[in-house]
């Protein structure tokens, strides 16, 4: 009883309603609120970072999908074009690129602005148009030979400077010398605008053409194909090797020093900076094996080694998660260990393995640094058709454009980033979808 009463005494000594205790409680709740506030603020600041990244890419990039065109009446002068009707297809293919479309634009401009005579002025006027405008004229001839001798109203691609002006990225306010467009050019542009001859549309060529020194002509198609070829090599190597070694380590490997070594090694390899893999690729694949520089083959091999640990680790986790009862049942029915693995364990762990592989591939798709080491930064216009041809990839294209001083490349960079992010989101959603689908089946 004495014990009990002393306990009571002790408890009664603390007066929970006293000011002291109330203050203490208040302080504790205050700390709770402050702490929670900090925690929320932290999470919010992380989300703000995400928002800033996405918003600034979107704001600068959305105009990159638009292009400016100038309407002009082009006279398909037979003297310039030549006689197309008598030519064979092969001759046409050779002749068409040599047509002096520049002269046709000059003639059209002379007709439109009769009082412009000096060469310098015509030259300035010509600079309102992209060099791609000539290709457009030639292509229209290639598609329809009957145009010869006729005057065709064409919407020709404007130069990047005009494009920037129309999009409001070049200010009219600044003085002439600091502006890429002269006052004279501005007058002509205003005249075109008044006549409604400047139109904006969707920039299809951004998706169909390769790199270019002219921002208005630059596109992501060859970089996209380069990325796909590189990823193909990466996948073909890292998937079987990664899954194979995961199976071995998880199901067959005896517990000994050697397998411990492999395990530690894989975990450490996962944290090696990507640029080190670039150095490896440069030293081994290019210098010693003498594989072609800038080729998706080398890029893919390098990235395969880089993604290998990711795939092994996730595949092992997926294999580990298969219930032992299934394996035991299979072995009990007379299946060999190998049969159990390939017929029971692997199909069941496939969703996990696929998810891991897709995440590894997404990582490889966004990687830039190791590819800089192996020469994928050259100026490459053509779309690669095999894995040994020179190619560049999307993130490297982003890097190259981001470094270009021309103002027109800024929006192209952001637009290319948007496409890259879209690919990454698609891949990740695919991973999630796969996981769900397989989970349902089970």
């Amino acid at each position, binding site marked *: 009883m004495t014990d009990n009463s002393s306990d009571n005494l002790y408890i009664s000594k603390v007066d929970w309603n006293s000011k002291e205790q109330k203050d203490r409680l208040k302080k504790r709740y205050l700390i709770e609120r402050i702490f929670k506030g900090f925690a929320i603020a932290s999470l919010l600041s992380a989300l703000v970072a995400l928002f800033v990244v996405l918003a600034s890419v979107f704001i600068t990039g959305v105009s990159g999908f638009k292009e400016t065109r100038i309407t002009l009446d082009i006279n398909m002068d037979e003297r310039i074009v030549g006689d197309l009707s008598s030519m064979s297809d092969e001759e046409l293919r050779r002749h068409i690129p040599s047509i002096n479309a520049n002269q046709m634009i000059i003639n059209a401009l002379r007709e439109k602005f009769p009082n412009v005579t000096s060469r310098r002025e015509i030259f300035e006027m010509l600079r309102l148009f992209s060099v791609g405008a000539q290709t457009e004229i030639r292509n229209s001839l290639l598609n329809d030979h009957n145009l010869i001798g006729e005057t065709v109203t064409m919407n020709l691609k404007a130069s990047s400077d005009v494009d920037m002006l129309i999009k409001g990225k070049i200010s009219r306010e600044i003085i002439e010398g600091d502006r890429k467009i002269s006052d004279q050019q501005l007058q002509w542009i205003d005249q075109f605008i008044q006549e409604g001859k400047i139109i904006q549309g969707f920039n299809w060529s951004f998706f169909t053409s390769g790199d270019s020194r002219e921002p208005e002509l630059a596109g992501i198609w060859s970089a996209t194909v380069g990325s796909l070829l590189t990823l193909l090599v990466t996948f073909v190597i890292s998937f079987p090797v990664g899954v194979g070694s995961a199976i071995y380590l998880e199901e067959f490997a005896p517990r000994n020093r050697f397998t411990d070594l492999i395990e530690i090694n894989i975990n450490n390899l996962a944290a090696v900076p990507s640029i080190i893999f670039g150095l490896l690729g440069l030293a081994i694949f290019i210098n010693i094996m003498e594989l072609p520089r800038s080729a998706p083959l080398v890029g893919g091999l390098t990235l395969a080694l880089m993604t290998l640990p990711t795939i092994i680790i996730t595949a092992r986790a997926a294999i580990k998660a298969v219930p032992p009862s299934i394996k035991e049942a299979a072995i009990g029915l007379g299946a060999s260990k190998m049969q159990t693995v390939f017929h029971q364990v692997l199909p069941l762990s496939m969703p996990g393995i696929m998810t891991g592989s897709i995440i590894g591939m997404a990582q490889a798709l966004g990687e830039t640094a190791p590819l800089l080491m192996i020469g994928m930064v050259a100026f490459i*216009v*053509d779309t690669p058709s095999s894995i040994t041809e020179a190619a560049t990839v999307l993130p490297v294209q982003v890097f190259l454009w981001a470094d270009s001083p021309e103002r027109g490349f800024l929006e192209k960079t952001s637009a290319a980033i948007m496409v890259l992010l879209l690919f990454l989101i698609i891949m990740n959603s695919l991973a999630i979808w796969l996981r769900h689908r397989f989970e349902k089946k089970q």
Partner: protein
Amino acid sequence: MFKKPTLKKIGIGLVGLSMITIAEARDQIRIVGSSTVFPFSTAVAEEFGRSTGFKTPVVESTGSGGGLKLFCAGVGDNYPDITNSSRAIKSSEIELCASNGVKNVIEVKVGYDGIVLANSKEASQLSFSLQDIWLGLAKDVVVNGEIIPNPYQYWNEVNPSLPNSKIEVLGPPPTSGTRDAFAEIALEGGCTAYPEVEALRAKDNNRFKALCHTIREDGAYIEAGENDNLIVGKLLANPGAIGVFGYSFLEENSDVIQGSFVEGHEPSFDNISDKIYQISRSLFVYVKKAHIDSVPGIEEFLNEFLSEKAMGDFGYLAEKGLIPLPAPELLIVQNKADNLISLKN
């Protein structure tokens, strides 16, 4: 490495397995070399790809020296066909080429280019004498008749008329032809203003060259790699810095950067082509004759480079800032290129 031959064969095997027969020749021109010529050769490459049936050449910026080194490494698919250079090939490089079996090299002069010292338009426009440039950038300088390590940290210490800003120059590395030409014209021009240096020239030419051409290494001169675009970007980011590069990059970016006066003359198209602006040099393209038969399109590429629509007064190269060859000189070069006349040792 000791296993080199074996690993190399494995490499060839990998290529073989990747759906390409080994024997198949490259059908795409590969160009390396000067970052100064890079904007011109890419423009020509692009137009060449667009207006002919050939594949667009792959152009990589490696610097004139680096390019010639790769170019001279040998004949065959793994070696570049063309190298750009912002200086003439040196005799040591011709020897290197010859020792690797690259015997016939065609030299094509494509134009002139000025070397400018530029800064951001946010800062004030500067005016240098060649002497200022040498005093600001050399490793050792002459002070009161004595040769001492460069003590200057601020431009106004070099010349009171220059602003009180830290000497911070972004320039090309030794692989660059711009660096060579800059040393030979600007730095040497500045250091020969001193009689004691001039006296040294007669006595000990090597010592003279070392004194005049060696650039300081204490961080005031920053080697910015073979990417002149990057230098322009860095200048915009840092208005106190000065960049050294070819005129074309100034022309391309005239809305954001400005060229400094040198010896009282502004770097402009006319000043450079009239040779009033002192720091200017010729640009070259070198072609491996042995490749002309095996890689398609090399001759056509040269023709495109020297054509009227590229080289003419209003050609697309002039638009990019190349100062074209005067008509009579162009004719000689075109003739030389047409007949594929190669350099003599």
